[in-house]
């Protein structure tokens, strides 16, 4: 069931996203910079994959420097809320005051889920780059548009997607053909085949 994440994501994440909104502001990071940090996020995701966690990883960047990183730890912690973004925020808040997030850009391999999308708003992050969409839980375009919805007192944040999208999708696909032993009824997935084509 859960492998819908990456399959459905294919249909909505347009590569054009990258170029379309990139020229709007002169404060924008260059494509090389974005890719460099997204690569770091993917290293975190790979770390999660190696630990049999859903492979999602992220880094928070302040003035071109990574000040926090995280990856999914829901199985290890037996806590379904320990997503990459919340792990990284906790790491940052051990050293910095919460206000620092207002100046931070987040690079995350997969669209933040509804919980994380709302958390990023509570933290008032400046901007979010993500790889592929998350059609099952996504809070930045897939199910809700929490990044720019009109609610609450905290400001909305900008998003851009499509960076290193294929890598993010392939990592999820690789993960979901394995079995999640922590789910209430583990599904037999031995008949699943890894799809490699990305539309």
């Amino acid at each position, binding site marked *: 069931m*859960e492998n819908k994440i990456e399959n459905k994501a294919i249909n909505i994440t347009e590569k054009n996203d990258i170029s379309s909104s990139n020229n709007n502001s002169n404060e924008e990071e260059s494509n090389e910079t974005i890719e460099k940090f997204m690569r770091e996020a993917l290293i975190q995701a790979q770390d999660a994959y190696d630990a049999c966690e859903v492979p999602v990883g992220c880094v928070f960047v302040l003035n071109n420097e990574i000040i926090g990183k995280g990856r999914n730890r829901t199985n290890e*912690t037996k806590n*379904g809320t320990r997503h990459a973004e*919340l792990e990284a925020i906790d790491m940052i808040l051990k050293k910095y005051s919460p206000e620092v997030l207002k100046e931070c850009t987040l690079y995350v391999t997969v669209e933040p889920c509804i919980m994380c999308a709302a958390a990023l708003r*509570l933290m008032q992050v400046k901007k979010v780059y993500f790889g592929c969409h998350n059609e099952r839980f996504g809070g930045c375009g897939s*199910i809700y548009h929490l990044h720019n919805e009109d609610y*609450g*007192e905290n400001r909305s944040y900008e998003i851009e997607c499509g960076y290193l999208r294929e890598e993010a999708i392939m990592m999820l696909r690789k993960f979901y053909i394995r079995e999640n032993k922590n789910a209430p009824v583990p599904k037999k997935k031995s008949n699943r085949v890894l799809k490699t084509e990305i539309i």
Partner: protein
Amino acid sequence: MEIKDIEYEPLLPIEFTRPLETIDICIASIEPKKTNDILKILTSKLSLNDMNIGHLKRIKKSEKHDKLLDVIINVSTDTTKTETELKEIFKNNNINEDAIKDFRLCKASKHPAYTKSQFSEWKNVWPMIFKDHDSQHNLKLSDEDIQNIKKWCSVALKKAEEDKQKNPDNKYNNCTVIVNPTSQEALAIETDNRIKANHPLKHSVMECIKTISDIHNGKDHINIETGDSINKKRKLNEEIDSSQPYLCSNYDLFTIKEPCIMCCMALVHSRIGRVFYIEKNDRDGGLESIHQIHIQPELNHHFQVFKITLK
């Protein structure tokens, strides 16, 4: 704080609360003797389920034509075209086209009835099939439930009040309790720790979920009611026997303020069973104010929500 009495309101999906909405259906009148032959064709060529009107009965006694039956043909408003096409099919199946007559439009309920009161009203428009979602969703709380809600809401209110005394400037004052509904044991009682911890995400719901994970990880935990330190993992395992506890599955959650969007999705991820809260959260509430996350159809877990009014 003693709670004398409560009222509760289940926060239901639209299916349970919507008023009657009708659609036009094309019907025709048929000879009762030909019913079997005609139905065979209609069921295979024009299935009600395929037309999203599986909640309607196919046939009823005709009020207009004595001794005839009215039957649903399709949901097209072009009755002439429907008549031509159907008679062509009849011809190919050797059924006399005089067996069916008077193709006309009729009203029927667009949606299936989820409650008995919807059903008793809507079936008068066109007969319907009723599946009792009311009892399936367990929307009536038992007397025992009511007693437990009173108990745990007052525990939450008391704890929040104590916290207010200690931290009078905490504008986020709140308390959440997670209870195992079978044993009626509080597994987590946490206040809002945003100000205390200088951490904007340490809402009481998130803190409770963390406490539950600590218990599942075997960490000792102080029982706030009795002050005893108990190893809950051992207790949980004894209680649930062979089946491993999975996150917050089937647990009840009591909280003063409607949880925010982040907390509501955290509860989806944690597979919470039921949520009870007292106050609406206009700013960013995720159950009634901004979104209805517990009944968002696209999500993989749904939970019951009851809004509690203290009397």
